[in-house]
């Protein structure tokens, strides 16, 4: 076991952190958010230049051969800077389907386009009554000759409003909440019958409602087995959750730093408020939540590429729970310790708090994953 970064990883992390420190200050981020896409195309290009887009793809496909640990490093850095660009949607979610579900031809076509930054992806899966149930899909796929016809409504598609192509889950057989019977297709965003309505989320990032009315997709656009895509979806989502946990660790790190700085500079009753023992301990509780969150995220990351769906799912759920409750504690303490200024849009701390609150909701909240893990038997076996 070895927790140290490799030389390449250190270079990646340091380079990215340095760039974000220069280019992604709080004011810059506000400016990026105000751009039409809701993020900065210029920054997107910078990431592509750095090779971030090709990071987790196999070298033979034109990638850098990175793994879940490399994704973790990027997401942590992005979490520290509250990055808005759709790297998660494109590389982790979309790229996950390409990597884990794409055949040679599909990978050969898509990886280069992802790698150079010219292709943005999204994943349209959630539906109105699915809540956090991954198997709940009402959208239908019907086979017609060499094509499939899709009908349905997808909700909360992260960065779906600016994606070029969208992975869409649909049901070809089975009941609404069956794991069997699911397919995943890659659909062009401008396909006939596909409409999108983009909007902002609470944290300033963007999503879209996507409606599919008799959208025809060629069978070459099917990823994974027809009717058997659930394991693929589960794996990509598990990897995505591990990545989001890493982003939350970045959030928590930034909140801890901002809060401790604030405690050292803000004075009340004639002394820095950081001299009050109760506030010190509240900051220590944030620190503990951060370090425990970092640890469990490493554990989930270690398991994220595993093909043992049960073991992988348990590790990922454990991390989502620990990050969910630790993130809430850290966020709420951060606001409380900042007092009134923490409640305002003009201070960064509230934006971290909102982001980490959204991360708890994404792909299942704390309670959902605690129930799931509990139903799966927990983490440790009986003697």
């Amino acid at each position, binding site marked *: 076991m070895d927790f140290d970064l490799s030389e390449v990883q250190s270079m990646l992390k340091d380079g990215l952190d340095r760039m974000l420190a220069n280019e992604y200050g709080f004011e810059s981020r506000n400016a990026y958010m105000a751009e039409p896409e809701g993020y900065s195309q210029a920054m997107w290009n910078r990431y592509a230049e750095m090779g971030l887009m090709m990071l987790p793809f196999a070298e033979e496909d034109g990638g850098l051969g990175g793994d879940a640990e490399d994704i973790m490093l990027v997401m942590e850095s992005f979490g520290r800077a509250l990055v808005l660009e759709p790297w998660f949607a494109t590389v982790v979610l979309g790229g996950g389907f390409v990597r884990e579900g794409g055949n040679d031809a599909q990978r050969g076509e898509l990886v280069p386009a992802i790698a150079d930054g010219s292709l943005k992806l999204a994943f349209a899966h959630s539906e109105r009554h699915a809540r956090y149930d991954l198997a709940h899909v009402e959208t239908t796929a019907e086979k017609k000759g060499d094509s499939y016809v899709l009908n349905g409504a997808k909700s*909360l598609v992260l960065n779906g409003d600016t994606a070029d192509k969208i992975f869409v889950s649909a049901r070809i057989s089975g009941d609404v909440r069956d794991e069997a019977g699911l397919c995943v297709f890659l659909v062009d965003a401008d396909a006939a019958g596909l409409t999108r309505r983009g909007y902002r*989320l609470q944290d300033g990032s963007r*999503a879209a409602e996507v409606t599919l009315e008799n959208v025809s997709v060629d069978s070459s656009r099917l990823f994974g087995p027809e009717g058997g895509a659930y394991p693929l979806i589960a794996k990509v989502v598990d990897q995505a959750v591990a990545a989001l946990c890493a982003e939350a660790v970045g959030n928590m790190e930034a909140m801890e730093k901002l809060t401790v700085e604030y405690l050292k500079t803000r004075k009340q009753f004639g002394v820095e408020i950081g001299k009050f023992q109760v*506030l010190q301990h509240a900051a220590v509780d944030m620190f503990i939540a951060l370090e425990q969150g970092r640890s469990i995220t490493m554990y989930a990351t270690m398991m994220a590429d595993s093909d043992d769906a049960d073991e992988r799912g348990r590790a990922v759920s454990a991390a989502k729970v620990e990050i969910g409750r630790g993130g809430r504690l850290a966020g709420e303490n951060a606001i409380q310790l900042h007092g009134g200024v923490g409640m305002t849009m003009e201070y960064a701390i509230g934006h971290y708090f909102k982001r980490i609150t959204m991360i708890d909701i994404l792909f299942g909240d704390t309670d959902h994953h605690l129930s799931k893990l509990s139903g799966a038997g927990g983490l440790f076996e009986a003697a």
Partner: protein
Amino acid sequence: MDLRFTDEENAFREEVRAFFREALPKDIYDAMIHGEYPDKDGLVRWTRILNEKGWAVPHWPEEWGGTGWDPMKQYIFLEELQKFPCPAPLAFGVNMVGPVIYTFGSEEQKKHYLPRIANLDDWWCQGFSEPGAGSDLASLKTRAVREGDHYIVNGQKTWTTLAQYADWIFCLVRTDTQAKKQEGISFLLIDMKTPGIEVRPIITIDGGREINEVFFTDVKVPVENLVGQENKGWDYAKFLLGNERTNIARIGMSKQRIARIRELAAKEMSGGRPLIENPRFMEKLVSVEIDLKALEMTQLRVVSADAKRGNTGKPDPASSILKIKGSQIQQATTHLLMEVMGPYAMPFQHDTGQGWNEPPIGPDYAAHAAPSYFNNRKVSIYGGSNEIQKNIIAKAVLGL
């Protein structure tokens, strides 16, 4: 000892409910049920309906429009008001500056201001907090210098709630810079239309405009706008801040939110069944309900003790926990309400001051859930943070 409501109290509760059912305009009810505060026009309309009924300022002296209800009835009225839910009358007028004026103000001040407060002819806001002061309120820096029959006010207030609507502001200002910090403070009433006052919005993390900064540059305030004596303002401020005990726990509001959680959790589905049928969710909700029931009894103990003493004596030690537990319960319930929405808590569906005119993303009741969770983080910060409250209990109650 008799721990049941009397028949008279029960009948009074029914009377109050019946009036609300009949009198609250539907548009205002609809806004309230969605977790929105009504706009200025709505609150003015509602306050005048209450005032016509004679219920706008129940706790005031009867001479100035009070109802003469005992503390228990006043509590029942407030609880039902919040639970219905009706908008609360503007606190800055009826709970804050009003009691200061009828207790410490001149006859002229009473006659002029009190009826206008009861009828919401004047919208008041509060000028206490200043940048950098936080919980150390007495460290305020805004100066008022006497020149002839005016004070010239210079300085800055912040966290000024709803100042954008305000006709008047009551301010703590420093009139003696040599005295130690609690002394040398005066209590001034200032017309917001006076030249030299500028209001700038502060947008909160939920995206709303509720608070403001207020800047004073050479603002001329007639000396007759001084309340009580010069340099005694801190005493009046303490009186004002101590007046909060019947409302600070917001029992009725939390009851209303719990009812809303139950209603919406019966609509949202989880694993093919209504969320309300999920035992874990239900136990979390019930866990808060238990806390709230205990706090309600604590509140009633305080009200009952006040009633015995004619509302003049030292507060019951239990009263000090109303703010702490009340804010914790408000925060727990806003988080639960957000949880009910599941992923639909995520879309940002309101724009500052403009409303949201597009069709909703997901269910039409989800828009305010996350903003309300974010916004309610304030309740453990303002009015003396929960840390300050615990310091007070440690010192005043436990003697530590």
